Structures are given as C-alpha cells and as structure tokens.
C-alpha cells in the first residue's frame, strides 16, 4: 500500500477546503456545513454499528435526541451550561441509555434487532412526548449556547458561528481519527469479526455479547455528542428529534455513502443534506410544482440507490476505478 493513495489526497483536500470555508462563505453556509458535520458524526456513530459490527439499528436517534434534552435541562432559562460539564454529562446519559437498551436489544439479532431497536426508540419518544418535564410534544429550548469557560478562561465562544464551526470540525476530525484507531485496535478487529461471522467468533472464545454491548454504548455516546451539538446549534429539542424518521434518515446517510467505511458515512451525511436542499429547491415544471412533492423524488431516489448503488457513493467510485484499471479482474465479485 502506497503512502499517497488518491483517497488520502482527496481526504486531505476536502479537509483543507473545510478548514478555510468560513473565510469564504456567508454565515448561512457556515452553519449549513456545521450541521452537515454534526450529522456526519452522527452517521459515523451509526456506521460503527451497522457497517462495522453488523448491527442494523433503527433507533439510533434516541441517543442523539436524549443528549439534546440533557443539554436543555443543563441550561436553565437565561443561564448557559458549561460545555466541559454538560457535554460529558450528555454523552454519559446517552451512553447509559444505550447500555440499558443495549442489554435488552442485543439479546436479539437480525430482523428482530431492527424491529426491537425501532420499538425502544419509540418508547423513549413517548417518554418525552407524553410527559411535561421535557416540554412535551412542543419541545424545549436551549436558551443559550454552552460556555466553554475553564476557571474563568474561555478559549472559544460557541455563540460565534465560526468558533462553533471549528469546534465541530475539530470534533469531526477527532471522532474520525479516533474511530480509525479504534478499528485497528484489538477491539476493532473483534467487532469486524463479529460482523463477518459472529458464530465463529463465539466458538473461538469471544463473549460477543460484551463486545457488541460495548460497541452499542460507544455508538450511543458518539450519537450523544452529535445530538448535543445539534441541540446547541438549533437551540431547540423536540420529541421528533429522537423519532424514527430521524433514525431512518441517518441510516440512509450511512448507506448512501457506503457503509463500513467512515469516509462513506461522512460523504453520505453531506450528500443527503445537499440532496434534500436540492430537491426542495426544484422549480415548477409544466404546471406541477415538483418541490411540493419532493418527498416523492426522495423516495424514488432511495429505492434507486438501494437497487443501483449496493456499495454506496464511495463504492461507485471504487467500482469505476477498478474497472478502469483492471478490466479483466472486474468480473469476480
């Protein structure tokens, strides 16, 4: 393996582009990209489950949303929460929830797992929807963005959208690198082994339940990190934030980009959000306002993507380059 693969170069170029973006873009676009990066972290956390461990969760938004609620509770009206306290707290709460749900859902597998994760996320949804403590169905505000003060010193302020952008960018890089390291560690090898052949892992002496649970909790914690910053950015948390449509759309991001690759999750998150914007911005053609029925196109797109892009957008690029390089070998699948 060469040191400078084209993939690496593209990655570095993208990173540089992201790093200089705030100097060129208006506030709206800086915030848009902040949102995309937050969703990218969320998508990576799900990819850890779906793409690497082989656990298809359809309730991942529960951990995303709960962290947002924790931030909302930690920041009472007109009083900002401290980032260094509330962020770990939010992530811990998401992790704890993932632990409790994980112990139950990991007793199942396959189709059961999909349905059970969905159902448990729905249970959390109702918990926030039907009780007043989180503002019920109307949701709850995060009045002020968290303050990053350590003993009076404030390295950055999240109220500034550029600062916020860079904090999220740093976290994106951190999570990406962290997961890269993780996947190459003993633990990482185990979870990938579980995806490929869990039965064999067990007969080799691995207590796979523990590793799956650890992975589920870790994914929950990272989803919590994303949910925390999403809540901080939008300033608003609502039960729908942890609803199953949110879970479905993040799953779509993972697949669209190409699951089992961290870059894929990031690419998926970015393209999905841009695609949605693009579809909603379609002009009227021949008396039919397409933008009013953009969800029809989105549905059609998803169906086509599943049938035509089995390995996601990244897979598309890879197939293309493989075909170019070695046309003879491309036939073996």
């Amino acid at each position, binding site marked *: 393996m060469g040191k400078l693969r084209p993939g690496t170069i593209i990655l570095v170029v993208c990173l540089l582009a*992201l790093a200089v973006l705030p100097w060129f873009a208006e506030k709206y676009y800086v915030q848009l*990209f902040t949102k995309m990066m937050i969703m990218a972290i969320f998508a990576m956390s799900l990819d850890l489950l779906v793409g690497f461990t082989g656990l298809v969760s359809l309730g991942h938004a529960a951990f995303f949303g709960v962290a947002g609620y924790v931030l909302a509770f930690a920041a009472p009206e007109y009083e900002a929460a401290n980032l260094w306290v509330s962020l770990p707290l939010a992530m811990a709460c998401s992790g704890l929830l993932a632990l409790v749900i994980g112990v139950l859902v990991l007793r199942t597998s396959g189709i059961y797992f999909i349905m059970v994760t969905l159902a448990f996320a729905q249970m959390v949804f109702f918990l926030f929807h*039907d009780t007043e403590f989180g503002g019920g169905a109307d949701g709850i505000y995060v009045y002020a963005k968290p303050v990053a003060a350590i003993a009076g010193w404030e390295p950055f302020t999240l109220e500034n959208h550029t600062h916020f952008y860079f904090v999220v960018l740093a976290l994106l890089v951190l999570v990406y690198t962290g997961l890269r390291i993780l996947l190459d560690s003993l633990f990482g090898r185990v979870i990938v082994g579980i995806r490929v052949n869990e039965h064999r892992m067990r007969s080799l002496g691995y207590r796979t339940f523990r590793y799956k649970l650890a992975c589920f909790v870790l994914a929950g914690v990272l989803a919590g990190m994303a949910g925390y910053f999403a809540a901080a950015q939008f300033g608003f948390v609502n039960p*729908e934030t942890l609803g199953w449509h949110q879970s479905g759309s993040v799953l779509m991001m993972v697949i669209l980009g190409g699951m089992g690759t961290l870059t894929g999750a990031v690419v998926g998150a970015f393209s999905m959000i*841009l695609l949605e914007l693009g579809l909603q911005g379609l002009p009227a053609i021949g008396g039919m306002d397409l933008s009013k029925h953009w969800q029809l196109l989105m549905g059609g797109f998803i169906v086509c993507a599943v049938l035509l892009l089995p390995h996601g957008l990244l897979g598309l690029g890879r197939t293309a380059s493989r075909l170019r390089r070695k046309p003879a070998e491309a036939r073996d699948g």
Partner: protein
Amino acid sequence: MSKNQAFHRRGFLKTAIAAAAVAGVVSLPSFAYAQSKIKVGLMLPYTGTYAQLGVAITNGFKMAMSESGGKFGGHELEYFTVDDESSPPKATDNANALVTRDKVDVLVGTVHSGVVMGMVKVARDSGTPLIIPNAGAGAATGSQCAPNIFRTSFTNWQPAYPMGKVLADRGIKKAVTLTWKYGAGIEAIEGFKEGFKKAGGTVVKELFLPFPSVEFQPLLTEIASIKPDAVFVFFAGGGGVKLMKDWQAAGLKGKIGLYGSGFLTDGVLDATGSAADGIETTLHYGDGIETPKNKTFRLNYAKTYKLQPDVYAVQGYDAGLLLVAGLKAVKGDMSKKKEFLSAMEKAKIDSPRGAWTMSKAHNPVQDIYLRKVVNGENKVTGVAQKALADPARGCKM
C-alpha cells in the same frame, strides 16, 4: 408565483468549490433579485398531514397582499417559501435558512405547534419579525412573547375557555375532558377547565389518548360508566372525525353532550356525515358570519382559488392584513423596524371573523363564537365571549 429556492448564487458560489469537493454537488437553481424588494419568508407545511392548512394559509395571505396592491412605497414583495414538513427537528434550521440565507424581512408561519416553537426561537435570536398564522402554542405569546412576535390566529386556551362558561350557564355541573396527550390538547383542556370551574362546574375526570392513537373505544366505555353531563374534547383532523363517529356508534350521541374547540368540526364535516350533527363548538370563526366583510372575503376567495375558504384561510388572510398595516406605516422601508412593529401592534384588523386588535402579548383580542353543526355547516349561533384576550401567562413584555 413563488420562487422556491434552495440556494442563491451569491452565497452559493463561494462555497460551491468546497461543497462540490465534499459532496459532489455541482449546481443548483439560482435567481437574481433586486435589493429593494421586501422579502417575506413563508414557512408552512406543503407536504404531510397539514399540507392543506399550509395551502389555505398561503392563499389567504397572498390574497390580502394582492388586495393591498402588493407594493409599498415603491418596494415590491418577494416570497421565499419553505416546506416545513411539520417536522420540529428541522424547524430552527428551516427558519434560520430563511433568515440568514434568504435574508427575509419578515417570517410567516406555521401550523404545527412544535415547529412554531422552533421559529419563535429563531425570531427571538435574530430579531426578525414573525407572524404566526395558526399554531396555538400558548408559549409563543406567553412565556416566549417578544416585541417582534405576532399571532393572527388564537392560543389553544382561547377558544376552549368560553365553552366552560357556556356549559355552566346551561346548568351543566359535571364534565369529563378528553384529548390527545400533546401540547395543544393539554392547553385547550386547561382553558376549558378554567372557564368551567370559574362558572361553577367540576371536571370529574381528565382522559387522555397517546398521540396520534385513535383507539377511542376504551375511553368511551369509561365515559359511559361515569355518565357526565358533558364531555369537552380537543381533537382535529382525522382524530376528530373518528371520535365523532365512534361517539355516535357507541350510542352516546344524544345521551351525553359532546363539545369541543372548533377545530373538532372544521374542515371535516363531509367525512363525518351525520355523526357531527348538533355538536357545539367554540371558535373565533364560523361559516355563517353575516358581515359584509366576511361575504366579500368568501366570494373573492372562492373566485380566486376555486375553493371555499376556511378558518385557516382567514388566519392567513389576517396575517396578510397585519403585515400590510405594518408595511403601510413605514412605506415599505423595512429599516424602520421599530415603527413597523409598533404599527402592527396598534393595528385594528378588519377581519372576516370580525374586527380585532392585538393584545399586549401580540395575540388577537377577539370574539369567540358559539357554533353548532347544522346540515354539514358550522353555523354561528351566538357569541360565546366578546373580545376575549389570552391571559398570556408568563409574558414579560
């Protein structure tokens, strides 16, 4: 004709390189626009359950704007529309896009209470004027009230409160309430309870249904065994239809009175059929308001859109009237924000529902009508309470 745009070239080009590199998006539609236009951001549901309401509001709003000539001191109007999908998680994001990307001068929206709370958040943070043409979440003109936030519809409390007095005055002492367990329902029930208690009645049991479940049967059984004098409900759309039909099928119709906030019987009477006959509700609008203003409005609306207007169209129309009042006062110059806001605050809206003014918290002070379903229409039978203002609890303005 609205221009529904996702990106503008100005901002977009700058980020296009990064965007294309990162996500492979190449180009999206763009429009040039003149600087002097007044930019109105319409954030309403155009897909999903509430799509119809979004369309009615947009129609009413645009009708008011075109009746006013559509030009203020030489400034034309430009619309930016966003489909909010009635999705609260996207609410602040969508509202924020209108404010920071499209740089709208005023926000109008929306139907869903959760989404409107997201818009209120953005309006409070950015200072952009917000006109709410439907959602009745009390907090928007209550604890979250702000100088730049206005509502031309109602609070959930508002149409429910007068029903309490109406029932108690008829000698009804014992009532049961029933609603979905969500913000709007709970607020409406609180309103009814307050009015009913004040007039001497007692709510013996409050029943809830998880949203959006429509499995009423157990609750009807419970009601039948309690045998109250009246049941007050808050439902809208499909849930309301099912309730009224189940009510009739369970034989409760004619034995126990069913009352509700007007949304119960609005826009659904065709679907409900005979099950709705005779049901009385309270609302700030009704089909047979015999005023010249209402007649002209209904005629014009039907002519323009080939549709009968409903309460949502009226609210959208009034949102337009309110904006016109503000724009006229500053002759379209949106830099005079203070004058603009104070003109809207002082406006007297000559609405199809009857003239109304803004309360201190920026919610209509309006007459609430008592209506009765007769032959598939919500006939106004009287005024349940004149010039009712929402108590706006928690508003510090």
